[in-house]
């Protein structure tokens, strides 16, 4: 009994002890197994930059919204013929833009998030390590990537808010839109900085990081979109004269997993899936565009399809690029030695289109090894040397003069020669020295060279400086395109959340 009395006294005292030991410590809990700020020595800004590269794979950056919003608006791309294309289909194939649609919305928010992330890094370098050479390279990478995101924004939405400062809380980011010129000015300064500070190339383990060539190529394109031909030409020159890039010998193989980061690659989104499929860091563009079939032919959703127009009328006779761009239902694939399932007619739900995008068609051996049919390992090429050559040709032709015309013809011929694949009976060299004819030839070349690579819509629009010009209204008009459709509406939820700071685009 005595023992029990003593015990009960102890029990009485326990709470006092517990209180003494401190509730504060007892209540202090931090995440287990997960790192928080301060846990990871991120080695300065470099790992923040890696985070920025990682964010390239965010949903609105390079995933489904990117595919549908960038790809299928063109005449050569069909979003999807099955109903799961849903309202996307109307939006991108028929230009029935919605003000509040998840796809347009996340395209905006993920790009803005990416820009905010990049601006944070740039701010950190400027305030902490303004003279550290390695950090300046990282700043240059962030500058390039910010310019890349703004370039997407300015061509998709026109006027957008500029956030070139570090954002600490949501209200910081609530700023009004800047003009298109102001956005381009930021792109120019970012790309100038990037060009000056980025290396020409990286050691092998960093293959895929952006380079001086990436910056100059993107800058050339940004000038081209403003019809600033001389600057575009100068930037292309820089890339060409670096002699770091050339056209990959085989047009078709360029797009396979076996030839990633080829000599032609200038900026390529790097995707990864381990050889046995156990881990991945990737986007799903190949899956969204994969053949929509059954069983082993269930390679994806079958979105962003070659249009009938692309298949029937775009290519010159026997252009080998056609068969490297398009897969035909029921026919041999012409690459891995297998035959595609037949086209079941337009009415059925699967195999409902006779053509598929071959540029995302993966190696069956890789599919088998990973147990993954959806090609998530496949890199996405954003900028490649053929683009540099054709931009160079376009800019030279627009400036004109015999030398420049010749230069344009030479560039064009390089691209066509590679496309011939050694068969000199096809794709005869373009010889016209008439500026207008050459312009048409260059436009034609861009259309087929970059078919299904997200260039077509923007090309058509930028070739249309005035509403009366022919390209976009002529080509896209029958599909429902109007002048206002060159830009998307600003997502209504963002307009609403801004409390009047963010203004809707005109005509919406």
């Amino acid at each position, binding site marked *: 009994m005595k023992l029990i009395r003593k015990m*009960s006294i102890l029990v009485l005292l*326990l709470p006092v002890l517990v209180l003494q030991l401190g509730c504060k410590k007892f209540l202090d*809990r931090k995440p287990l197994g997960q790192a*928080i700020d301060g846990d990871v020595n991120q080695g300065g800004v470099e790992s923040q930059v890696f985070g920025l590269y990682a964010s390239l794979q*965010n949903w609105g950056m390079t995933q489904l919204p990117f595919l549908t919003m960038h790809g299928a608006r063109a005449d050569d791309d069909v979003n999807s013929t099955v109903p799961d294309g849903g309202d996307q289909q109307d939006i991108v194939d028929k230009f029935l833009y919605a003000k509040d649609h998840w796809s347009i919305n996340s395209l905006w*928010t993920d790009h803005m998030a990416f820009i905010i992330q990049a601006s944070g890094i740039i701010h950190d370098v400027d305030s902490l390590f303004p003279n550290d050479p390695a950090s300046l390279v990282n700043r240059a990478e962030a500058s390039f990537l910010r310019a890349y995101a703004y370039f997407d924004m300015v061509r998709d939405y026109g006027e957008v808010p500029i956030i070139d400062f570090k954002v600490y809380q949501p209200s910081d980011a609530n700023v009004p839109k800047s003009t298109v010129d102001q956005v381009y000015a930021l792109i120019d300064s970012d790309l100038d900085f990037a060009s000056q500070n980025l290396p020409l190339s990286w050691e092998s383990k960093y293959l895929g990081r952006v380079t001086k060539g990436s910056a100059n190529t993107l800058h050339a394109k940004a000038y081209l979109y403003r019809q600033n031909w001389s600057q575009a030409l100068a930037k292309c020159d820089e890339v060409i004269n670096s002699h770091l890039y050339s056209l990959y010998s085989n047009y078709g193989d360029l797009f396979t997993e076996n030839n990633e980061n080829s000599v032609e690659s200038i900026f390529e989104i790097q995707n990864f899936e381990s050889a046995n499929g156990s881990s991945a860091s990737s986007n799903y563009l190949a899956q969204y565009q994969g053949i929509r079939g059954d*069983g082993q032919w269930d390679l994806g959703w079958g979105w962003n399809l070659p249009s009938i127009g692309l298949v029937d009328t775009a290519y010159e006779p026997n252009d080998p690029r056609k068969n490297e761009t398009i897969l035909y239902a029921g026919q041999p694939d012409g690459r891995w030695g297998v035959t595609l399932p037949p086209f079941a007619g337009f009415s*059925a739900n699967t195999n409902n289109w006779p053509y598929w995008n071959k540029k995302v068609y993966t190696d069956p051996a890789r599919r*088998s090894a990973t147990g993954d049919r959806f090609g998530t390992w496949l890199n996405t090429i954003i900028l490649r040397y053929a683009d540099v050559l054709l931009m160079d040709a376009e800019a030279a032709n627009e400036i004109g003069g015999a030398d420049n015309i010749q230069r344009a013809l030479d560039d064009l011929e390089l691209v066509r020669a590679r496309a011939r694949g050694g068969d000199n009976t096809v794709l005869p060299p373009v010889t016209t020295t008439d500026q207008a004819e050459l312009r048409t030839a260059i436009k034609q070349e861009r259309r087929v060279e970059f078919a299904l690579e997200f260039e077509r819509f923007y090309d058509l629009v930028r070739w249309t400086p005035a509403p009366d010009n022919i390209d976009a209204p002529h080509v896209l008009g029958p599909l429902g395109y109007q002048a206002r459709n060159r830009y998307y509406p600003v997502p209504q939820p963002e307009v609403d*959340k801004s409390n009047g700071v963010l203004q809707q685009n005109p005509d919406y």
Partner: protein
Amino acid sequence: MTIACMLIACLHVSASGYAQENITLNLKSVELRKAFIAIEKKTDYRFLFDENLIAHKPKIDIQVTERPVIEVLDQLLQNTGITYKVLNNKLVVLKEISDPVNLEDFKDVRVTGRVTSAEAGDGLAGVSVFVKGSTLGTTTDATGNFAITVPDNATLVFSYVGYDSKEVAVAGRTVVNVTLSLSTKVQEQVVVIGYGQANKRDLTGSIVKVPGKEVADKPNTNPLSSLQGKVSGLSVVNSGELGKEPDIRIRGTVSRTQTKPLYIVDGVFNDNIDYLNPADIESIEVLKDPSSLAIFGVRGANGVIVVTSKKGKSGMTVNFNATIGFKQMVDKIKLTDATGFKTLYLEQNPGFDFSPYTANTDWQDEISQNGLFNRDNISISSSTEKNRFYMGVGYQYEEGIIKHETLKKFTLVLNDELKISKALKIGFDINAYKGMNPQTHDFSNAIVATPVVEPFNAAHGLYNQMPIGTAQIGNPLRAVEETQGQFISNTYRAVGSVFFEAAFLKNFTFRTTYYGDLGFTDEQAYTPLVNTFNIANNDTSHEVTKTDVRQASIKNTKYQQDYLLTYKNKFGDHGLTVLGGFSTIFNNYSEVNVKGSQFTTGLALPIPNDKRFWYVDNRVFVDPTSIVVVNPDKDVFQNYLPYQWQQTTVSFLARVLYNYKQKYLLNASFRRDGSSDISTDNQYQNFWAVGAAWEISKEDFMSNQKIFDFLKVKASAGVLGNQYTSIHYPFYPILAAPTSAVFGPNGGQPIPGYTPSFIADPNLQWESITSYEVGVEFATLNNRLNGDANYYNKLTKNLLTSYPGVGGTKPGITNAGEISNTGFELTLSWNDKIGKDFAYTLSGNLTTLKNDVKKIYLDAPIYDGPSRTQVGDPIGSFYGYVVEGVYQDSADIANSPPNGTPSPGDLKYKDVNGDKVITDADRIVIGNPTPKFMYGFSIGATYKGFDFGIDFQGVSGNDIFRNWGNGAGYATLNYREARLNRWHGPGTSNFEPRVYDVSLPASTYMIENGSYLRIRNLSLGYNFGTQTISKAHIKSLRLFVSAQNLKTFKHNSGYTPDFGGSATQFGVDNGSYPVPAVYSFGINANF
């Protein structure tokens, strides 16, 4: 003695002999009563008198110094017409001189005796024994014995919480033994409240007690399922899915994150009670109002359900009960058969070649079965003066209504309470359980698979592929048959506690309890190779080409300690119970979940379909380099939910229960909670409630009325908390690498880039619910009709809101938004007997619910599937277009506001905003998932040995969103039978649109009426008479048959009208699982 006496005395009466005492008094113009009180205070003398005797006597003056009491009494009573006699325990009995009863007849007598319980026969400790009309008295000791000295003709009143009081005339006896019976009156119930128990009569709040027998013999493995329709204010939505927890809400949906209440099982705080065996439950209390809930602080807002397990009862009883029965699918969904399907499909896709597909398969029939269930329980209960022991062992076996679904549970309850001395008690409590969790499937594929395919292709020994929607819909029967036994999951749980209780200084009790809750789950899962047959291509095809195995081990442990100090005393007319306490909870979760796949090179053998090999360290079949941690689900910020977390709380609590004359009641409670989930800067938050009640029926002016036997009005108000966030560490944004940078040749290597995943709000605090209730309880018509009616009003403020980033900024969690829940509750019950053998009970309850979202972060609606939570509408409202009809022809289209490029046969939406065009702006709230009211009613009757019961339950005024059968959007699937009435030419239908191939936006087309009435339980039992069975040494024996969910009168087309869900999405019919009818037969015997 027949006169009513009023005695002012303390509880302890001295029995010592005469001793002359002197007193000094100085009183001016006081009532006699005051003088008596003064004498009692200063001396051992006590007075016994009739209240009326002194009521109208003139005021007196007295001034004496050190005079004998007797002398003072003489002086006081001079000329008052009152005489007295002093009994030998210094009791002064007063009487009118003119009263003919001779004072000399008064004697005092020492009475001893024992009070026992009529039900269990054991001595009742703490029974109050007092002279009628007074509080003079004593209480029984631990064994039920008492001793008291009273006038020999006094009437003793024995009262004990939860028991009917008894009056016994002493009539000169010296031994009075009494048995008390458990009260059947609602207001006399003892209810378990937070950190203790109390007489319902002394409380100001609304607590509903459900006796254990209500859940014990119901065919539900989760005891909460049996509460459906039983308690006002409590919504229980059951799922037919095997082992699935019901959706429980008390008085509406108050939070954005957590809807279910807190469960407290024998003191331990819990979020689920899957581990309990219904047969071992003594009672379930549902706590609903602020007065009852504030003591639970930050966990009180959703209401609390308190479960008490059975404890040992006096004597020794062995109970055996067994139930066996089966479950049957009811209300099958009506779908098109092969003929109907072909008709519709060909309208949509003319020319489709159906020639290889000649079957007419009913996939629902193919995969379903009548599920068996069986429960066996045995318990031993034993109690002596010193020790109370209870042990229960149970086994439950249950099958689902889809083939091969089985669930097994083994449960053990063990508790013991030992009285070491009068002052010291210790005890322990163990609830242990092993659950063999089911591998569940659902009907979602069976209701969309096309009927034209034979399930199995006997010629090829393979299941057939679907010709339509192949990529989306596997063969439903294959999924059930070929994955059989490929998911093995066992849960083990032991919840236990040890307590020490010490009584000291007469009025104090100190109790310490330590709780442990140890939960473990082991899982193994296997993905087989899947081959199916494609009829069109005459081809076997791999749906899955790689085998893998997954192993998971989950550990959830919780430790709780409570230190409670109770002070209980009575001062004259004032009753007071004060509780102070300190409590901590430590909750720890960790999980390992890994997956390994077969080799892809070299050996490259598939992992066999044999559970011997379902281990990731199997190096013959599993490629060691393929072993990865399985990605968990993602949280609101798209981060993977952690596989481990810890959470702690520290709480200080206090409560005062006060009453004056048991007529005016005041309850107040307070809790201060500190939580590890809140920033260290404002870690503690306070919650409180105050309640008051008035038992009007105790007032004098009510003594002459015959209408109310009991009448009490009550009101309470307080602030409660809700601590559920959608993530575990809201103050520590984890560094997330949702994707990785990838660099390098040959496919590259990923390099994760870490960024904080959200913005932490330093000022975050818990949701607080300001709540009040007013109500009335009554008993009338000779206690046959009992009622309880309440109005409740709850306003949740500072809703914990996870918000998306603005303009591309990071998301975060903040406090924003308000939700209001109001309603009215009514419970009525009628008990009566007709003749000697027939007794019956009618009872019913009704609750109205009104939910209104007052504010939301940035006024931005919360989208959750088809549900939308927005300001001004009920939470989780359905949102969409209003269907006006179907476009009959192109003229109809031309005459209607433009809406894209519709075809005749498409749904015609209403131009709600009148802008002459159909746009997103024409969408409005088209349905409310919260019922306007819910109700339940029961009829029970006993006649001789027979007992009969029937329970009804229903809801009214809610809507269901039909999220199936609307055309899947991505593929054409089987059709609802109603689609046969589709539009297929002008005038054919103005509601069902043409067969289509697109996903329709949400509209009233998908809204169905959610009201229903269900025959929830029907039971018939027979109790054998004791004579019949006593020869077999059986104390009691009952046989019964019952039917659950016998019939549901509903309006919707789905399997069932009940659909639970989250806070912001519920009432959505995804067509997944029916709620079956259950028929059972059982036996219950006591030895």
